[in-house]
Every structure is written in C-alpha cells, then in structure tokens.
C-alpha cells in the first residue's frame, strides 16, 4: 500500500461485513436456495389475497373433498373450501406469528443476555436463574399455559411462543458476550472512557451477534412449527381462519379418505421449517470466523 505518511488509513474492511456475509451466503447453495424460497414465501404472504384463486373461507358443501384438479390444484376440504387458497392465506399467518414470536424473544432475550453477560455477578445470577426457571417448563406446556391465561388468537400465540424462546436467546447471547467482553478492543474502548451503552452497542453486541443471528433463523423454524402445533391443538389460530396447523388437524380425520387435506398444509410446514433450518446452518458456516476465512479464500 502506498499511503502517504500521515494520511489516515481506514481500519475498516473495504466491503462492509454484511455485504461480505451475503456474498458468502450466495456461494452456499443450500443456504442460498433456502433464502430464496423463504423470500418467495414472504412474497406469497404479502400478496396472499391477490395470489389465492378464491377466498379461503368460501364454503361450498356440494364440492367437498374433491381431489386435486385444474379448478382446485390442491383439492377441496371437508367444507368444499379451496385448499390452495387456504395454504396461501395460511402462509401469512404462519410467518406473522413466527416473526412476531421470534421478534419478542430476540428483543427481550438478547437484552437479558447482554446485561447478564456484560455485568456478570449478581445481575448475571439473578437474570439467568430466572431464565433457568422459564427454561425448565416444557416449551409447549408453557405456551399452552400462556394461551390459557391470555386467550387464543394469533397475537397471543405469538406472545406465547415468544416467551418460550426468551431463555434460549438469553443464553446464547450471554455465552457470546462472555467471550467478547474481555477482548482487547473492548478493554481499550473502556480505558478511553467509553460509556457502558457505547461499549454494548458499538463493540459487544456487533461482535456477539453471529450466534444470535443463527439462533434467530433456527428459532423461526421452531416458531412456525410451534404455531402449527398450537393451532393443531386448537389453541392457536381459530377456525375458520386458515392456519397450516389447523388445516392439518382438520385433515387428520380424512387422511384415508382424502389425503390432500393434510398433505398440502403438511408440506407447507415441512418446507418452511426446512428452509429456516438450512438457512440457519448456512449462516452458522458463514458467520463462523474460522470457516469464514476459509471460504473467503484463505489468507487474509
């Protein structure tokens, strides 16, 4: 490099880290395909009403249990509703609940993990024992308890699932923060008088983020699955609103008579969960510093 003496040298890498991450991700075929599929799902969720061939709740008892055909590519259910339309409309329900739930868990869980990991001592003890208590409840049971208190509906379902995942994020964040807080750059920053807030937001959180990002993707998979499970149990989305889990529950009684009732919503759940998981795996690879170096062509 031929910088003139005295000229400031940027210490930041030429490409921002996030763009580098995206580039690496693009070279991971599984993760890239998963990401694209998820993007497509998000688009389906946004344009659901336009995409669905008919209303999800249009009942036509005379046309019940029709097998997949041109008019109804996914067939019709026991009330003669178009299953394709319901699967499409169900996408929004699943993703909305998934994102909201993980958003709640991410915000609160990461906050708790940051505080616990950064300050340590009694704050750490108090917060993490609290998280241990929450963690000790079986997840679905805890969610059912929350729904029993708050009532059903998609907002409460998201809240219930979100609460269940708070301790997961708190633990992941804390572990990551513990590794970061003693790093030289943190101590250096502290020594020049940076406030705790600045330390946390500028140095600790960004550097502790990779595992949290991976956890987010994987938790989305679980959240979608949890929403389906709770709706299956009758506690999540309420009929007649289309939810994949609810459709699965309704289709269960018809499985040997009309496989398509349960098959298509089941596939939708399967694909969505799989994509979030594979994306999570891909992100893990990409964000791991060692792997990152390797994948980026070594050397730097």
């Amino acid at each position, binding site marked *: 490099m031929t910088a003139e003496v005295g000229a400031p040298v940027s210490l930041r890498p030429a490409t921002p880290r996030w763009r580098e991450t995206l580039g690496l991700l693009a070279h991971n075929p599984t993760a890239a395909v998963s990401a694209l599929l998820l993007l497509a799902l998000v688009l389906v969720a946004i344009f659901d009403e336009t995409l669905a061939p008919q209303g999800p*709740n249009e*009942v036509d*008892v005379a046309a019940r249990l029709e097998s997949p055909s041109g008019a109804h590519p996914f067939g019709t259910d026991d*009330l003669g509703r178009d299953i394709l339309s319901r699967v499409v409309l169900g996408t929004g329900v699943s993703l909305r609940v998934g994102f909201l739930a993980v958003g709640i868990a991410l915000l609160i869980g990461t906050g708790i993990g940051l505080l616990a990991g950064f300050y340590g001592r009694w704050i750490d003890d108090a917060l993490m024992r609290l998280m241990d208590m929450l963690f000790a409840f079986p997840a679905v049971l805890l969610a059912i308890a929350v729904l029993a208190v708050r009532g059903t509906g998609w907002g409460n379902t998201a809240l219930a699932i979100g609460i269940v995942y708070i301790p997961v994020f708190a633990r992941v964040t804390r572990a990551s923060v513990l590794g970061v807080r003693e790093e030289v750059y943190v101590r250096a920053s502290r020594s020049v008088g940076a406030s705790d807030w600045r330390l946390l937001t500028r140095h600790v959180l960004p550097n502790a983020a990779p595992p949290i990002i991976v956890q987010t993707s994987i938790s989305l998979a679980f959240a979608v699955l949890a929403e389906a499970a709770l709706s299956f149990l*009758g506690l999540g989305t*309420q009929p*007649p609103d289309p939810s994949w889990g609810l459709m699965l529950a309704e289709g269960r*009684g018809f499985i040997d*008579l009309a496989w398509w009732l349960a098959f298509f919503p089941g596939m939708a759940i399967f694909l969505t969960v799989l994509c979030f998981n594979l994306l999570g795996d891909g992100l893990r690879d990409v964000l791991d510093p060692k792997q990152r170096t390797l994948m980026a062509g070594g050397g730097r």
Partner: protein
Amino acid sequence: MRATRPLALAVAGTLALSACGGGESVDTGGGGGGGGDNTLVAAVSAQPDQLDPHVTTAYASFQVLENVYDTLVVPDPEDLTMQPSLATEWKTSDDGLEWRFTLRDGVTFHDGSEFDSADVVYSYNRIIDEELSNSFRFQNVESVAADGPDTVVLTLSQPTPNLLERIGSFKGMAILPEGAADDLDLTTEANGTGPFRLESSDASSTVLTAYEDYWGGAPSVDGVEFRYITEPAAALTALQNGEVQWTDNVPPQQIESLGDDDSVELETTPSVDYWYLSMNYARPPFDNRDVRRAISLAVDREAVAEAAWFGAAQANQTAIPEDSFFYYDYAPFDRDVDQARQLLQQAGVTTPLTMGLMVTDEYPETVTAAQVIASQLEEIGVTVEIETLDFATWLDRQGAGDFDAFYLGWLGNLDPAAYYQEQHQTGGPNNYQGYSNPQVDQLLQQGATEPEDEARKAIYDQAAQLIVDDVSYLYLYNPDVVQAWAPGLSGYQIRADKAINFENVELP
C-alpha cells in the same frame, strides 16, 4: 328430554338409557367361563366425568351408568314408550294427582342388600332436597312416600301426564340404596341394581363385571370394558382390528364407505337429538325479531347438516324429529338471502353486523357447522366471529349470558315438554337466550298437564310454531345415531335415545 344442562346436555340428556328394559331378561349365560374372553370391549369417545347418576350430566357417564343402575320405568328400546322396570305396575288416581307404584320383588343391589320402597324414597328425595341437576323433573311432585316395602306413592301438585318420562327416561333418575351418598363415594363407586357392577374406573377405561343375581337374569357376557378412544379414526381402526367389539365413535365421513366393509357391522337410526343456534335476547340487535328471522332465513340447514354429518342428519326447522308422534311439519324458513337482507334493513341494522358464535371442541360438529353458517351469513352482511372454547368455559359463559350466539344440541329427548319447556318458558332453567312469550308460556303450561296425546300434540304444535317464528332457537337438524360393532355380535339394539345397554349382548 334433555338432559340436564344444556350442553352437556346434549349429551347428557341422552342418555338415558334403558337399561333394563323391556325385556326381561335374557339370560344367561353364556358364558361362563372364561375370563377375559367373554368380556365385551366397547370404544367410547370420552371418560365419565364422574359416576354419581344424580349429579353428572355427561353422556360418557351415562353410557356406563345405563348398565349399572335401574330406574322405576324405562323406555322401550323400539318406540321409547315407558315400560316396567323396578316398578312392575302403577296406578294414577282419578284426579291425576297421586301415582302409586308397585315395586318388583326379589331385586337386590350389587352388595346383596334387598331393594325396597325406602330406596326409592331416599333416591328421589336426594334429587329433590339437594336440588341436583334433575330436580326440575320433580317440579310437580309434592311428596314421595313409601306405603309398605313394595309401594311408593308420588303426590303431585298438578296432573303430570309425562311423569313416567320424567322418572324413567334416563339413568339420571337411578334408584340408589338408602344412605348410598353417606356410605359410598358415589363419584367413583356404585351400588346399583343393574345387570353389571362397577369394577374399576380409571383414566384409560371403566370396567364392569356381570352381576349374577341381576333380577332380569345374569348378562350373557362376563363383563364390559369401556375403553376411551377419543379419535374416531382410531376407534374405528381398533374395531376393524378386533381390539374392541363395539363403538359409537364412528367418523361420519366414513359411514358411506363402511357400508361395504365386511369387518364392521354399521347401523344408523334417527336419534331424538337436535342441534340449534341460539341468540342472546339481552344483546341488541339480537333482541330484534326481524334480525333473528333474517339470520334464520340466511341459513341453509341442509348444507349445515351435510357438512356436520355427511348425510347422517336430517335438516329440521323444529326440534322434534320426523319419526316422533309429536313431529310437527313446519318449515317457514327456506333460504332466501334477499328477504333476509331486507329484514335486516327493516330492522335498521347497519351491516356488516358482527355476531360472536360460541362453539366448543368438545363437540367438533359445532366447530364445523359454525364455519358453514359463518360463510352463509356473510352473504347478508353478518360477520360471524367463531369462538372455540373448552366446554367448561363455554358453560360458564352460557350461564352468565356472556354470548351473542351459541351452537349446541340437546340429546335424549323423549317427551315434547322436554323438547320445549325448560328452554323456552319465561325464566326456564335452560332459557339462556332470554326468550319470553306469554302465549308460549301458557301453551307449555297447558301441554304439561294435558293427559290426551292428540290434544297435547295440538298444543305443542302451536307452541313450536311460535317458538320457531320468534326464533327463540334456530333449529338446524336431527342427527342419526351411528354405531358399529363386530360382525356376529348379537343381542344389542341401537336406540334413538342413544342409551347403550349391553345386558343381552353376546359376543361372536
């Protein structure tokens, strides 16, 4: 008729079964021998909530209790008229105010003690004094007295032509041994006079064993196990595999295909149950008759029945099913969306009008049917918000009047009074919707005391017409009883009141 509480009722009501019945005994035995081999395993959908016949209202409980307890009279399995059971004959005084029942000789309870009039007096007074769920059945009874060990006298405040139905339509009116409530924990123990004695009851099954000294002759099987299989598909599979020999938990959508299935014998018969939607008179605009009539006009009952029962139900705009003597052919509400819209407009309702509809997953057909109704009402600008609740919450809210509308059924009704009185009389115990029409009150009062059947029918026809026109209940359909058993099983009779009696059953 109904069973007790409404909901449950639905269920419960039903129950009644007969136990004993008519026929006297059959007997015998066959079986002797061997142990488990000669035990009938019946798959039922739910566990009894408790086994006190005077307290429970759950159909699941009465399925079991039907086989354990007896009543003074029982419905004939064929036509549901009242036949002798623990009472062999009865006489009514000329003024209709005194009924004298002669009790059967040689009847013993499962613990060996003799049955006599003191047991009847004790049982009836327990229901009356403790105001148990069936006490309304004794509302005209002033006293229950023994006249010697073999005779019981019921003194009434007014003639009660349906008294036999009131005391015999189901095992909620069972005769317990004197002092039973103090000697036993009746919620889990039983001591009846029926063909089977209660052996055990736990979270997976209830087991009964044959009572050898049963007054009608010992049952043919050694025992009955009621196994709880919630999922209809699983119950059916268990039957097809031979794990169970009988079930009433048949998925309606399978009825058609089971017709040609050799591994299962399927029977259906019209039941005496009815399902309905009820709107809250205390919540405007549902207090407006035009609004209720508009909603009634917008509902396609055929489609609702088809959706819920796959053809195994008959749409009906009144409560009483077609096979009954008291059936009244009255159907003013053929679906007419335009007229419905017009009525709503007349009533000054701005659409979309939102109506909460309470249903319960305890009866999945309510959830299914509600979705059909919701889509039909959408067309007239009524947005139905379906609320699926657990049954306990559902009942609480019904009792508290906290609903716009609900969907449920009444089961096991036998007498027209049971179909209409408690539900539509002003202030009636099951008039949760808050209906009040003095003309209906008067007719129901008249019907309850009119001794002649033809005249009674005329009175109840008039009452039904008013109730239907006012849409106190929005009647929907009468489902069939659907039961299946192993080919070759004999001695079992499917019944309109859904009483399940295994006294005479013989295994293949």
